[in-house]
């Protein structure tokens, strides 16, 4: 696990559901074919209404042109991030697009589990309404060791909630690695 994650912020509002993260019509692509899976990155966050995409300004595309990698790799969300369908394609799409961590006020259960058990990205919770403090494009530095987020652009420092119970799974890498390390499976 990387201990320091650096990158630009992409700020979204409350209730970002999995249909906005990866619209249903794109769930048909292979998740294993190395070329085809890039489409998940390309269409990541493509159903977020433009005015809410890249707050506070809005209308900032997460993916530019034909790319599948985003210039933003830390997503800042409000409450209930990842609600809606159980599609694991959602954290996967964000991972393919280069997202390393999401920092939101709260998560929907299935999205949160998927992030952790699949080892796609770090779902951090913030006690502070970061969506009102951080702007899309701000340079961030996330210290996973100390649960500290620095906004390098503004100089602000935030303390995030500890990953708690699920830390052993995150540290192992995913649920399979965790189960192997703890002797549950061969």
């Amino acid at each position: 696990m990387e201990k320091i994650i650096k990158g630009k912020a992409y700020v979204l509002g409350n209730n970002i559901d999995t249909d906005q993260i990866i619209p249903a019509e794109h769930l048909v692509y292979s998740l294993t074919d190395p070329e085809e899976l890039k489409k998940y990155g390309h269409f990541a966050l493509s159903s977020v209404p433009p005015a809410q995409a890249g707050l506070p300004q809005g209308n900032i595309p997460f993916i530019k042109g034909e790319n599948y990698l985003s210039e933003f790799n830390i997503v800042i969300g409000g409450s209930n991030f990842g609600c809606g369908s159980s599609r694991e394609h959602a954290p996967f799409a964000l991972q393919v697009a280069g997202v390393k961590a999401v920092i939101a006020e709260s998560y929907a259960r299935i999205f949160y589990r998927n992030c952790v058990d699949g080892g796609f990205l770090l779902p951090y919770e913030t006690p502070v309404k970061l969506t009102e403090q951080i702007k899309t494009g701000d340079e961030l530095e996330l210290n996973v060791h100390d649960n500290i987020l620095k906004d390098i652009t503004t100089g602000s420092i935030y303390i995030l909630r500890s990953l708690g119970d699920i830390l052993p799974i995150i540290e192992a890498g995913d649920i399979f690695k965790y189960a192997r390390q703890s002797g549950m499976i061969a």
Partner: protein
Amino acid sequence: MSMTITEKILSKSSGRKTVQPGENIWLNVDVLMTHDVCGPPTIAIWKREFGKDAKIWDKSKLVIFPDHYIFTKNPQANRNVDILRQFASEYKVDNYYDVGTERYKGVCHIALAEEGYNVPGTVLFGTDSHTCTSGAFGMFSTGVGNTDAAFILGTGKIWEKVPESLKFTFDGQLPAYITAKDLILQVLGDITTDGGTYCALEFDGEGVFSLSIDERMTLTNMAIEGGAMNGIIAADSVTEAYVKERTNKPYEIFHSDADAKYKKIFRYDVAKMEPHVAKPHSPDNLDTVRNVQGTKLTKCYIGSCTGGKLSDYQAAAKIIFGNKVKVPTFIVPASTQIAKQLEVETISGVSLRQIFENAGAEVAQSSCAACLGGPSDTIGRATDGEVVISTTNRNFPGRMGSKKSAVYLASPLTVAASSLTGVITDPRDFL
């Protein structure tokens, strides 16, 4: 120690005497369900992790229903069904319900009930967020992602955090213009889309136990729209009769203790309920039908695991009978069994299917169809600028196909009444 019904079932499944909310426990899974969208990636992860000798922990407990993208020319969607077919034949999975055969069922959550996989007291996981639907049978059921499903596929086990419970008691009998959909929209309006996160929603009271199994499934189906882990209704004689007709698997009926602890208790008098809608773009954006009546529509949709059951069509047909629809109206029965029942069930000697067709509505083949938008050739899909009223469960931006469309969620009665006028209409105007 006193426990809720959810806590009792989770205790049994984890082999403990008691469990407490907040504890992480390992469960023994009774049934794993998957479908064409999440099945193929689940299988891929399972093979990656367990190698070429990967074994299914218990084939009799794995159930696969292709249902999401069925009647489409989209090659990748069809490839996903091919992957399931090949997997089922290679690993001899009996509980596979293939497209294009007599066995094809349609929407997984309804098919699970019809085929006897829902058994009181058991634990069911599925790769679909609406797996909570099965909780209508007094069992624990919830959705997981592909990785968790692959883990279950290989081990039969999964971890879960024991949820706190919220209780919703519905007193009284439902008036003729109120359906379970109105009740659950009210609940969602009250708790909002994250009010139930990591919680169980338990429904009880005379208003619930007087409902048919179909209607109970509407309540538990939308538990996830409140962010809940599961929805649950204790089994009673109605449940037992339904289950016994379909399976001879043993079942166990659990009830919450009278002094069980709840995070919060809500009480409703159903006689005072109003027909409700959820306005765009969230299932908790509650309003009464009266407040939004007259809103111009471009499309009506009666379908999905929420609103495409026989009871939904019986309700809709009552209103549509002998009338003509004013806007394109789509009838998408959740399962092939329901589609057959539409031809058998009658009102004044006319089959429900005929009632809808005579009115000018289009009756489509059973699948998820436009409930989740789907590939571009999906029937009933919302396009830019459309205003849709639907019996489905989600109206997030883009959910039914276009992020430039607006979707109102409502009961089958309200959607039927609206189809006849072309504007949002209170069903009391027709009853």
